[in-house]
């Protein structure tokens, strides 16, 4: 598969007052800054942000850094922040970075809204 055929993207919608970012594809240095910008922009306008990672087939340290920055900013502003249903590939990197115990991670949005 060539790089051109990777279906990278980030869809945004509102659900019960939360902003939901649904990320898909391979989050690496080539576009992790876009994810970072989406996360930080969303946190400027929402009381709660959920980042859905189910369709992320690959993530590198720059993608993880974007999520860490968002989480820290949410915490500093007392906003709610959750990672939703990370794929096995994302979970593996979170575990490797020992961030699986740091991020609020939930199976779905409803559980996140009840639990954060």
């Amino acid at each position: 598969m060539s790089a051109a055929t990777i279906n990278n993207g980030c869809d945004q919608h509102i659900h019960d007052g939360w902003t939901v970012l649904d990320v898909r594809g391979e989050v690496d240095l080539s576009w992790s800054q876009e994810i970072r910008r989406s996360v930080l922009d969303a946190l400027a306008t929402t009381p709660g942000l959920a980042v859905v990672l189910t369709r992320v087939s690959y993530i590198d340290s720059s993608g993880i850094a974007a999520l860490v920055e968002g989480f820290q900013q949410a915490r500093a502003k007392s906003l709610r922040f959750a990672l939703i249903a990370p794929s096995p590939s994302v979970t593996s990197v979170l575990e490797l970075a020992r961030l699986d115990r740091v991020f609020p991670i939930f199976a779905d949005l409803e559980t996140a809204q009840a639990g954060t």
Partner: protein
Amino acid sequence: MSGRPLLRMTLPARAEAMAEMRRALAQALERLHIPAREQERLILAVHEACTNVIRHAYRECVGGSIGLCVEHVRGQLRIRLRDRAPPVDPRCVRPRDLSECRPGGLGVNIIDETMDRWRLRPLKHRAGNVLCMRRRLRKESGP
């Protein structure tokens, strides 16, 4: 290095080239019949090493290249990255304390956790840097 290369390629030192590198490395590692999780870890570590070269050695300047050579020698994977960037001080390339929750700086930890050994050295006469990484492979258990 000795042994027949599983993969030898030269990449432009650009983030957009990393997906192609990952595909090529995945194809090369397929031939070794190692567990999928192990393959993913190795690909991630090599990717992190390449992106460190792009960001910190070339400092995201255009026009640089990265030479990648992967060999399988007596159950061990030997990976060599060669760049032509200004010399990097190996003392500045160390894993960080993961108990600190902060963005950035995870790439070296990923390499360090994945590889059994790694060594970065600047070449003489400002001819670039070489990163050598080694990892003993665990074979997939049979049916």
